């Protein structure tokens, strides 16, 4: 067969590294969850992964008022959930009511992408309007993300703890869940009557594939081995060091960018050791991101030039602030009062400059990355201990700046809101500010930063918003709150006969247009 005539049929065997946990759509940020939700749910809008423009999907058109507090969507007619119920204004309204407000009785949490939500209003069966308490300029993009997949009312009625069962998730997507073996396999089959893919896509109608089989395969070596041995068609999480091996076998590597905050290490300035901006700057200067990328990663992992990816909206090149200069780093540390002590570790008033960080399991080769950073910092007399704790200790210690002055961090989302998500005390609060998620923080607050972040999230004017985003990037790096390392892709590998693989804007695969050329 030739590339121009897609072949229908066949089942794609997809090896996933981890089992999905919970398929409540806002939980789609977890890659395994998103990888499933992206096939079985549709979104109101479609973010073009190339242009990052928002395009129609279930919503044929929409209007936003000037201060971005009211959004009106006109829905496409004839869309149904796989249980036969209509995907109409009521369904959309209930979905966003839940995502925006949560549901305490059902223990459903609020979605991270919906800020300042107030209420919904059903104008007519195909028109729905959302009201916000404050401007929410990121909402439109928020309707396109993986966390905003639309599910049937029946699914919404289920308590949160039952949403790990994929067979209970009823969406309107091109695939439906056929069978599931908890924690092991998931079988999807194509929906024959699917006819409401994003308008601007070349492919319309039902999916080419008859089905997709997800198999949870935790071992890296088994996933790669199986792909090479022809036992699987497509795999997620392939490490940079295996890329060469995979490519020489004639297989295809996919590394879509996640377009959000770069893979970085951040500081918790509440910890006195890193409270001094000179110390943080020095450590930033001591970090050789080029060496990290060339040692551990590949061409799919571009060195960072700002705190967000170069493909992200609002990106401004900050390479000037990201120099590598050991001498300057030492000078700054001297200046800050940390003098070389016994064993080569710098100290001030008897306090040794010894920092610790927990490795982050979902990030690629994070353990090796942190160890390499530790090696680099050691050259300026700073010790970084890398911990591999259990999730409990990690979660608890991570709240305490004294225990974790340094932490790896990254998040993917193709909207400037992502910067606020990452740094704002009421959101992820990676810097651990007072009044944020941790009651262990004693004093650190950066009102200036928070003001900029507020501006990003609520400035309805696009130009001003992008300016705020640029300001945030510069400010974070001036304060050396974060040391961005590289732009993180999601790495997949597929057999050569797997055609038409597409990814949504932050790197979750979409198998709607995939076909098997064999």
């Amino acid at each position, binding site marked *: 067969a030739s590339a121009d005539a897609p072949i229908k049929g066949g089942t794609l065997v997809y090896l996933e590294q981890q089992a999905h946990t919970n398929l409540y759509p806002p939980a789609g940020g977890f890659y395994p969850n998103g990888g499933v939700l992206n096939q079985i749910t549709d979104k109101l809008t479609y973010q073009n992964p190339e242009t990052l423009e928002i395009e129609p999907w279930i919503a044929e058109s929409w209007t936003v008022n000037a201060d971005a507090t009211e959004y009106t969507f006109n829905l496409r007619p004839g869309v149904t959930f796989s249980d036969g119920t209509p995907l109409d204004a009521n369904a959309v309204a209930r979905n966003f009511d839940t995502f925006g407000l949560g549901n305490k009785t059902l223990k459903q949490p609020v979605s991270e992408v919906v800020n300042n939500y107030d209420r919904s209003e059903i104008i007519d069966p195909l028109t729905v309007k959302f009201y916000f308490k404050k401007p929410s300029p990121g909402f439109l993009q928020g309707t396109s993300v993986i966390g905003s997949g639309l599910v049937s009312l029946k699914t919404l009625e289920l308590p949160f703890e039952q949403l790990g069962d994929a067979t209970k998730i009823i969406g309107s997507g091109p695939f439906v869940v056929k069978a599931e073996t908890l924690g092991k396999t998931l079988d999807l089959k194509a929906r024959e009557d699917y006819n409401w893919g994003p308008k601007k896509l070349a492919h319309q109608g039902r999916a080419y594939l008859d089905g997709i089989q997800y198999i949870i395969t935790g071992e890296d070596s088994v996933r790669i081995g199986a792909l090479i041995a022809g036992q699987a068609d497509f795999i997620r999480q392939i490490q940079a060091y295996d890329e*060469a091996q995979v490519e020489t076998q004639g297989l295809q590597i996919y590394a879509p960018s996640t377009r959000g905050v770069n893979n970085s290490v951040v500081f918790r300035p509440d910890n006195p050791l890193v409270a001094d901006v000179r110390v943080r700057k020095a450590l930033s200067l001591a970090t050789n991101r080029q060496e990290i990328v060339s*040692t*551990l990663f590949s061409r799919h992992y571009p060195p960072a030039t700002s705190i967000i990816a170069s493909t992200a909206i609002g990106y401004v090149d900050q390479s000037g602030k990201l120099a590598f200069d050991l001498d300057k780093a030492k000078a700054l540390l001297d200046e800050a009062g940390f003098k070389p002590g016994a064993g080569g570790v710098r100290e001030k008033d008897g306090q040794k400059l010894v920092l610790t960080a927990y490795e982050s399991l979902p990030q690629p080769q994070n353990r090796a990355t942190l160890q390499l950073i530790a090696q680099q910092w050691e050259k300026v007399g700073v010790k970084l201990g890398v911990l591999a704790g259990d999730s409990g200790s990690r979660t608890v210690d991570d709240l305490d700046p004294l225990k974790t002055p340094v932490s790896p961090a990254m998040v993917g989302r193709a909207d400037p809101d992502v910067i606020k998500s990452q740094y704002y005390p009421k959101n992820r609060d990676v810097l651990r500010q007072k009044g944020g998620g941790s009651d262990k923080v004693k004093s650190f607050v950066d009102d200036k930063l928070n003001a900029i972040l507020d501006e990003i999230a609520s400035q309805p004017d696009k130009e001003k918003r992008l300016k705020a985003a640029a300001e945030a990037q510069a400010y974070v790096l001036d304060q050396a709150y974060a040391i961005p390392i590289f732009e993180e892709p999601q790495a997949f590998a597929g057999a050569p006969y797997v055609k038409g693989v597409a990814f949504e804007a932050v790197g979750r695969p979409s198998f709607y247009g995939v076909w098997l050329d064999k």
Partner: protein
Amino acid sequence: MTTVETLSTLDGPETSGKTSGRRGAGFRLKRLPLGLVLAWIIIVMVLLWAVAPGLFTAYDPLQGVPGGQLKAPSTLHLLGTDSLGRDLYSRIVHGAIHSLSGAIAAVGVGLVTGTAFGLVAGATGGRADAIIMRFVDVLLSIPTLLLSLSIIILLGFGTVNAAIAVGATAIAGFARLMRSEVVRVRRAEFVEAAFGSGGTFRSVLWRHILPNSLTSIIAYTAVQFGWAILQLSTLGFLGYGAPPPTPEWGLLIAEGRNYLATAWWLTAAPGLVVVAVVLSANRISQSIGRTGA
């Protein structure tokens, strides 16, 4: 831990002594089995690695050479380098101290606690015996891995804590073996004879019961030593091992396995070292078991 009963059957019925007396212990030294010699050589060598790693390698086990990563074995790097450009051979040599001390600590925990339990249970009998042995049953009935993982989580990650966690799961085995030994020895006539010549409970326990119960325990300890190395490496495999960049063997195997497609020696080499050490420990324990009794 499954070797408990093996060892206690090993010196089962008292050999009548008639024939064994006639054949002296002298000739035992004449023909040392080759395997045993090899086992001792391996253990001694590994012990030397632990004590003086600098004698065996000049490379830094922690600081890698960026750009020199994932090199295949060569004369320069006997076993190649890992993803950070660290010499694998050097990491194995320097890892000996961590793995061995971990295993020793683990066995120590099991040995001390377990034998104390077993001794008290076997020597006092009655209610104390019943309570202790039921407790041992409880330890056995909780899946070992769950037990050790929980303990690690509780105590925090680290070589010592992992050792304690492994040791905790070994307690039951030691306790069972010790108790059965003590009960066996208690039945021996020489124990009654000791009481008969006016010995107090404590003096008999100390002079006769303990020393005579120890042969199997020592053999078992050697087996457990190998077992502990394996357990520690399994913990490393599951992500509960020593914190990086400690070159602990289990961690080396566990981390190396990710590179199986590109650099298989990263997991094969430490794997073979562990196999060799555990095999040697087993071989030595067998020889202890045989000469004991």
